[in-house]
């Protein structure tokens, strides 16, 4: 089963790698680049929102910070167009992450409801700073990025595509690794019952902050690539609340807390959004449709596609095997103690006195599925 999964992932990866070579139409590859970029943001965001349950509705601020960092470095260090800017991406991501730490610390001092609102407020603060710190950001005039002149025609999108793909792969690896680590388990415990987790020794403050910063890291990296891709950035276009909502929606749609859910969500949402903006951006239909989809997803599929499919699959299997749900009432066998529990093992009989109750299957009552 696990091998099947691995093979599947490798196949998908291979497809992703050859995709732009096969579908060379620049419109298609452009949408693909955006999709990959936002899939990376979504995957990173999921580490915070999905694993710990702290929904940050302003994390796109760090996308913007990464974008501006990229633009500023290119400007001040006279970086020419070409492959060099890509080397700056890790640096810009790091900056975004570092900026996020004090902000995250402030925001995480409150519990979930207020946290959400604070992240929104912080987003607007950063947007305002982008407008007002004119000496740094050039205000509403925006900043330009170097333009790679020798990437002609349909080739232009390729470096961006692969850069974004690499970012996405890294994000997925990090997400997967966290999911299986003690750190990730702590985050999940926080999501279920933060106080209990704290009481059991989970370092909740540090864990949440780390997740916050990691999410900011990937948002920043994606923002840097995005900025370079679109060639010029303005406070209005980079700090766009709709980006933020789109990312959150992607994760919810695909499945909050799953590893591949955000990617699935991005695959569905981003092309859709691009299409809508193109067709209907003028008059407002795009907002209506987007909002409508949003509503539908929230009301019908609140858990997202993958978890819902997972549930259906489980139910199907349960029906097929006809599990007997009725467990033996109070059947228990008192077993031997694990030797470790505070006693010396020198020469004592390990098994505790036993009493065999009527039905021998499980302790406890039946399980409610």
């Amino acid at each position, binding site marked *: 089963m696990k091998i099947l999964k691995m093979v599947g992932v490798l196949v998908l990866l291979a497809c992703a790698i050859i995709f732009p070579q096969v579908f060379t139409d620049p419109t298609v590859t452009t949408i693909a680049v955006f999709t990959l970029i936002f899939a990376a943001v979504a995957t990173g965001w999921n580490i915070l929102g999905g694993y710990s349950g702290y929904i940050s509705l302003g994390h796109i601020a760090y996308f913007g910070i990464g974008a501006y960092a990229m633009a500023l470095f290119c400007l001040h260090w006279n970086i020419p167009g070409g492959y060099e800017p890509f080397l700056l991406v890790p640096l810009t991501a790091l900056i975004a992450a570092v900026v996020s730490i004090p902000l995250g610390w402030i925001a995480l001092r409150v519990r979930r409801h207020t946290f959400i609102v604070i992240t929104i407020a912080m987003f607007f603060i950063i947007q305002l700073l982008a407008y007002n710190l004119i000496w740094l950001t050039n205000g509403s005039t925006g900043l330009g990025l170097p333009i790679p002149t020798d990437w002609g025609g349909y080739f232009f999108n390729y470096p961006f595509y692969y850069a974004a793909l690499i970012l996405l792969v890294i994000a997925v690896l990090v997400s997967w*690794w966290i999911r*299986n*680590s*003690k*750190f*990730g*388990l*702590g985050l*999940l*415990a926080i*999501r*279920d*019952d933060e*106080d*209990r*987790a*704290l*009481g*059991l*020794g*989970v*370092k909740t403050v540090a864990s949440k902050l780390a997740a916050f910063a990691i999410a900011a890291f990937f948002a920043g990296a994606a923002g840097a690539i995005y900025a370079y891709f679109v060639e010029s950035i303005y406070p209005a276009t980079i700090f766009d609340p709709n980006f933020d909502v789109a990312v959150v929606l992607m994760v919810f749609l695909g499945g909050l807390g799953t590893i591949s859910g955000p990617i699935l969500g991005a695959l569905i949402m981003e092309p859709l959004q691009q299409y809508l903006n193109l067709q209907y951006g003028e008059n407002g239909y795009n907002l209506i449709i987007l909002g409508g989809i949003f509503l539908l997803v929230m009301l019908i599929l609140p858990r997202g596609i993958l978890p819902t499919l997972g549930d259906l699959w489980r139910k199907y299997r349960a029906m097929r095997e006809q599990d007997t749900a009725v467990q033996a*009432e*109070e059947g*228990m*066998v*008192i*077993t031997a*103690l*694990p030797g*470790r*529990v*505070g*006693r010396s093992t020198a020469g004592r009989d390990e098994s*505790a006195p036993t*009493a065999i*109750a009527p039905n021998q299957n*499980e*302790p*406890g*009552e*039946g*399980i*409610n*599925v």
Partner: protein
Amino acid sequence: MSLLETQDVTKAFGGIQALNSCSISVEQGSITGLIGPNGSGKTTLFNVMTGYERVDGGQIRFEGRTITNASPDKVFRLGMGRTFQLTRVFPRLTVLENMHVAAQRNDLKGLFSRWSSTHEQQRALELLDFVGLTKHKNLPAGNLSYGQKKLLEFAFILIAEPRVILLDEPAGGVNPTMLNYLTSRIRALNERGVTFLIVEHNMEFVMGLCSRIMVMHRGTKIAEGTPVEVRANPAVLEAYLGD
């Protein structure tokens, strides 16, 4: 030797004096019961001992060390575990994952390696076996029955190898057979050196299990002794009936 003791602990909630100069002492290696009518302050005492509430005055000592107002995680790390009246497990995590949350790791490297490392995994499985939940190890804990959740809570505290366990109404809402099972588990652990302090209303359970019982009333201890002594104590009777 006194393992856990409180000295003149007071705690008020608004106008209500929950704990009134309460001093108790729990002997190492004992199974001590804590009973009293509703509102006598038993759960509040638990809460201050385990760091879930701050005291207004008084001292709390564990293994000779003052732990007054320490945070819950510190208290847990020092070796005092507790369960809750309404079970608190992590519903969306599997039973096995629940076990691992409490497994302590003190180094940074440990934080980032897999949570199901061999040594902890073995221990977690042993403990699940001890409480009889092995078959459900991959079920989301939210799917367990109430009694099973109690057992799970019990088990994952054990993974940290606490020296004293505070049980807050373990018998509440649990059927007799399960109760017997729980009693046997407690006794087995006690034989291995774990001290217990149990708050409970179920008299049969308490009298049958505990070697020593303390009675609280209106925020302070009014009686103490063996089950026989306590049962015969007129002050205890008055506390229960008088209110």
